[in-house]
């Protein structure tokens, strides 16, 4: 590292410390004029052993904590570089070098997951629906095309949580690492328009390296850093793709498309459907855009031309619109596919399979562990975590506080105290016992008599029974869904949270409407 760079960084370090409070926003605005500073800071982060790394991380955290948007964005632009430092250090199993970077990233994470009042932040958005009028459309003109299972289940706008609430994190573990990093990338992506070209480039580089290190493609890219494989998650890759997509459209096309290829390569090897899905879509849509305009300027590739407004499709071609008035003969519709087969599939997908994500979700009753330790108010906790730098690293070396163990007043696990508040409202065993008893009686008789090891007929019976239940349920559900949507219209509610009851049932509707596979 050159002495000049060092000087620039040191000046930056001391300048902010002496800044009076009312000068902060002017200072923030003036930061972008310091041309030599940003490259110098990149160097500091890349050279893990630099003495400046710790004070730089500390100051970046101070920037982030200030709440001043421009200071936050200034700190955020280094996120890709910081992530790469952290990941490459953790793969080299050299935890000491990345201590202050870890602390900085955890600090940013812990700040971002709470709102101003210290409450856990929940990021949500509204899923628009064509069945509700908007500033851009009127439902009646859309026609009846949208009347599908999805439209019925979501008749109206639903608010969906896409991130949060998240837990405060004191340290990085293998388990939470990507959860934290994915969330940080989400924050980065929310500020993409403010990121500099060098930051975007750094993001693409990070994406490439994370995805190819340790795989044969590393040779192809001639990257000679670490050579061990880094674990990734599908969600992390999806966030990377979002950033790459922006970089592709607003920055370096070459670096961007290489990064996208590398992410897709890894997603294929890992068999990640989410990353493959989004990556393929980006690639395919960029392909179309590239055909339209082949600009090498690296400028914004958002280009719009005057397009003919007349339909490009000839009048006499049969389209879905023109076919709508056509009357089908009845027997045609029946022959579309074998409904039995589809029905069977839908059943499998409805989470009858245990341990799978069942669609729909209801809040579980809260479980109170009455002798659990009172958690300190979040505000205080957040404050504590904000203290960063050498201290935090020291705390970490001391090892994580031994949670509840030390304070546990008695060894005896008192069942009474670990009360499940939900238990009152959950079915009692007695309610079912008669059914079970009959079944088991049948079983033990056949068992004693013949000694068949696996009484299959019994299972069949149950299975069949369940099947019937399922069908009965579907009808009821369809009915209920209908009623529900009607009441929606009457009351004009803008918000619908489809009850969990509906979810296992709606599929039977889809079976009839779905395309013939």
């Amino acid at each position, binding site marked *: 590292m050159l002495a000049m760079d060092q000087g620039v960084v040191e000046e930056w370090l001391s300048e902010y410390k002496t800044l009076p409070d009312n000068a902060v926003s002017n200072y923030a605005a003036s930061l972008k004029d310091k041309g030599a500073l940003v490259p110098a800071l990149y160097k500091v982060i890349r050279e893990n052993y630099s003495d400046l790394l710790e004070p730089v991380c500390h100051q970046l955290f101070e920037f982030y904590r200030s709440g001043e948007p421009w200071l936050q964005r200034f700190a955020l632009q280094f996120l890709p570089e910081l992530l790469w430092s952290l990941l490459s250090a953790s793969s080299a199993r050299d935890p000491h070098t990345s201590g202050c970077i870890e602390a900085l990233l955890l600090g940013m994470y812990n700040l971002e997951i709470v709102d101003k009042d210290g409450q856990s932040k929940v990021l949500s958005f509204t899923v628009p629906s064509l069945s509700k009028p908007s500033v851009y459309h009127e439902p009646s003109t*859309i026609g009846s095309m949208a009347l599908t299972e999805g439209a019925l289940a979501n008749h109206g706008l639903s608010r*969906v949580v896409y991130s949060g609430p998240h837990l405060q994190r004191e340290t990085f573990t293998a388990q939470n690492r990507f959860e934290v990093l994915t969330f940080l990338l989400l924050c980065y992506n929310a500020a993409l328009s403010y990121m500099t070209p060098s930051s975007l480039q750094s993001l693409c580089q990070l994406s490439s390296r994370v995805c190819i290190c340790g795989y044969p493609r590393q040779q192809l890219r001639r990257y000679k850093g670490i050579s061990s494989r880094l674990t990734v998650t599908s*969600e992390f890759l999806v966030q990377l793709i979002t950033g790459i997509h922006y970089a592709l459209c607003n920055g370096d096309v070459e670096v961007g498309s290489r990064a996208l290829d590398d992410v897709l390569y890894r997603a294929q090897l890992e068999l990640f459907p989410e990353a493959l899905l989004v990556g393929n879509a980006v690639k395919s849509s960029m392909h179309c855009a590239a055909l339209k305009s082949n600009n090498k300027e690296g400028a914004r590739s958002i280009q719009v031309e005057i397009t003919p*407004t007349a339909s490009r499709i000839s009048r006499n071609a049969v389209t879905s619109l023109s076919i709508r008035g056509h009357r089908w003969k009845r027997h045609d519709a029946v022959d579309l596919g074998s409904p039995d087969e589809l029905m069977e599939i839908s059943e499998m997908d409805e989470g009858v399979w245990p*341990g799978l994500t069942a669609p729909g979700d209801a809040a579980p009753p809260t479980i109170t562990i009455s002798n659990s330790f009172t958690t300190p108010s979040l505000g205080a906790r957040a404050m504590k975590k904000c203290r960063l730098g050498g201290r935090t690293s020291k705390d970490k070396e001391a090892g994580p506080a031994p949670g509840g163990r030390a304070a546990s007043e008695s060894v005896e696990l008192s069942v009474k105290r670990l009360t499940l508040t939900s238990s009152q409202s959950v079915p009692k065993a007695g309610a079912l016992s008669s059914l*079970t008893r009959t079944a088991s009686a049948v079983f*033990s008789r056949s068992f004693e008599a013949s000694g068949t090891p696996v009484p299959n007929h019994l299972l069949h019976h149950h299975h069949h029974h369940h099947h019937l239940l399922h069908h009965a349920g579907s009808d009821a559900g369809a009915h209920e869904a209908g009623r529900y949507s009607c009441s929606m219209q009457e009351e004009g509610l803008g918000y619908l949270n489809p009850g969990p009851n509906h979810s296992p049932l709606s599929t039977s509707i889809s079976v009839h409407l779905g395309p013939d596979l």
Partner: protein
Amino acid sequence: MTARKSGSRLETEIERCRSECQWDKIPELVRQLSAKLISNDDLGELLLAECKLQTYLKENPIKQGASPRGPRPNLLEVRKHLTAALDRGNLKSDYLQEASLLMAKLCYVEGEYRDALGHYGRVSLDELQLAGAPVYRLSIIAESYATKGLCLEKVPTASPLLSNNNTGSPALSNRTASERDQEIITCYEKSGDIALLYLQEVEKVCMSGIQNRSPKPGPAAHEQELGYFLETGLQRAHVIHFKNGNLTRGVGRFREILRAVETRTTQNLRMTIARQLAEILLRGMCEQSYWSPMEDPPTVSPLDDPAQQGHTHSNKTYSLSRRPRLYSGENLFCPQENTEEALLLLLISESMANRDAVLSRIPEHNNDRIISLQSASVVYDLLTIALGRRGQYEMLSECLERAMKFAFEEFHLWYQLALSLMAAGKSARAVKVLKECIRLKPDDPTIPLLAVKLCIGPLHWLDEGECFANMVVDMGEKAAEFRAKGYLAAGLVYSLKATDASLRGIQEEYQRKALGAFQRAQSLSPTDHLASFYLALQLAVSRQIPEALGYVRQALQLQGDDVHSLHLLALLLSAQKHYHDALNIIEMALSEYPENFNLLYTKVKLETLCRGPEEALLSCKHMLEIWKSFYNLTNPSDSGRGSSLLDRAIADRRQLNAMTLPDFSDPDTGSVHATSIAASRVEQALSEVASSLQSSAPKQGPLHPWMTLAQIWLHAAEVYVGMGKPAEATACTQEAANLFPTSHNVLYMRGQVAELRGNVDEAKRWYEEALSINPTHVKTMQRLGLILQQLQRYSLSEKVLRDAVQVNSTAHDVWNSLGEVLQAQGNAAAATECFLAALELEASSPVLPFTIIPRAL
């Protein structure tokens, strides 16, 4: 104010034809008109000029981007008509204005831009009345603004026409240049607004015409075409904004156009613009730089080219006396976030693209089909990007299902549908679609591998899985890096089949095949930790402990913090009875994976052995705390659909934990049998019945958290049973039973407690009930066998135990019990063999079965 004379049928008819652009009828009408009054001659000239000019433009349309080329002989007549009308000057002022505007248009068509601008200067466009004007007039005004803009763009900037106010300064200052740019844009924006108004009005007139069954209905399917000038007026303003790098104003203009109530003619335009705006929102904006359509745009935005900032005014600089109608009403949905707006726009474009899907497959329509496919694919790709960002895979899969009408032989759409189904957890359907993808692209090894992943994991379709895995293996060298994965997949299928098999011979056959496949995978890809790990796991299952240890160490060298490798290492150490070492490994693993319940279960077992039950109980309590903090937090009540990013993340982790759980806990046998899966389905169905019997049971939603909770309680119960405390054990079991009353694990635990209390008959009853739910639960079979032996029903006991050995031949305590029964029956030789087998197996028996470690691709 207007030129309309009420009562004159002829004039109304002329007005209607002009509004609806039925130029072919004008000459006849003019003939009728001049027959009435001589003074109508000038009007006739005007009408003929207009009709000839429009007809000419219809026959020789101006192409976008092309410049008009000089005077045309065909247009001489037009000029003659117009000059005649203008020179005589007898027309009413309205008509006179129209004649001037037509003259200007003619000048433009002939390339005389300055002349055209001169005409516009005389008419003063801004003073023309919009309110109450006949419909055709709106069109003329809109076209005039567009033409004026076109002319201004053509005329060199130093034109004296424009620098009237600062005469004499040949050097053009920046200010005037930007003022001029502004003037051009304003022309186009006004033109666009008035054009939208015109189209809305025309449609209104048409509709009322149809409703009133007017005596002279126009051609039924008469469709308005915009023509060059209106198209330019509608689109040129935002094209200039984007060209200048002024995204803020471009987006603003897009929104203005889209907010105007649609007409039949603007549908295609809206579809294009909606898609373009969505593209910009997804490619060029982020959450922080977004502003809602109802808000004022930010004064300084990172979206705009900094060089342009300050030069152009970001606010609207003109006003019109009449504007196009906008969508309005109560509770209009207005997006508040860029993804929301992009989604809304894409859903609108999608519904239109879908409407235009060309269904016929005859060759003549090939081109149309390609066009409709392309415009739809772009929309579906953007939808995928938007919904993928927000983790809404379920909704995405529904959207992509709608794309299937385009998808015949289109690999991209099929593949995207398959992936979205997979991401949405609709596994069975995903496999069906993947089959079609394989047919379309048989050389891609990723696709069958994705299918195996589903078959091994959520579906447990092992035969299908084997078939897919073999496809990859059969590709040989062609599969390149995926070849090793193919062997790995095959190995996993065989390994799972071995666990399912109920006959020992078949079991061993599959184990052998699995080992072979894993070895192959490991040799093909020695740097893949998964290959080494699964090889180690398979060796462990067949009780080759030292070899397994070697490979698991290798796996850990490649991937030091892999949770399953660490877990396997701990279990292997426990099989060698190095309980303390095993516990150390588990604790190390837990420091990296503090919330992994599988590790915690093993920890409880090891602690019972090393440190006594009190420690184990503390761990159980700790697990309950983790469970609480984990699932309490991640279940916000307002999440409408359960496939957000976070839900997905949890689901993935859950799957890891859940691999062993199809039979929800099975802490003891661990092995996932086909029968036990069936049992757990029965169990779940029964639980559903049970909860529906209860009036308002809240136990809904994802089952996994509840299974985990029940399992924690059962572990606690087991520890209490070990301590000889039946009351506490009963209480714990009851907690689990509250969640899953008909679980065979709960019933088994009840039996254990009953045994502890000395109620043999009651215990027997519980065990029998457990077996009625899951007939292959080995632990239960073993206990039942023992009780039957106590009751001196030896042959039945022997039968039960032999069945148990068939199910799991490595359960040493079953062999032991079998030995005891045989001994009691006086069959000493057989008993000895059983005891020996038990002894041998016990020496390599882990604290929990190796198969609790999930096997997934």
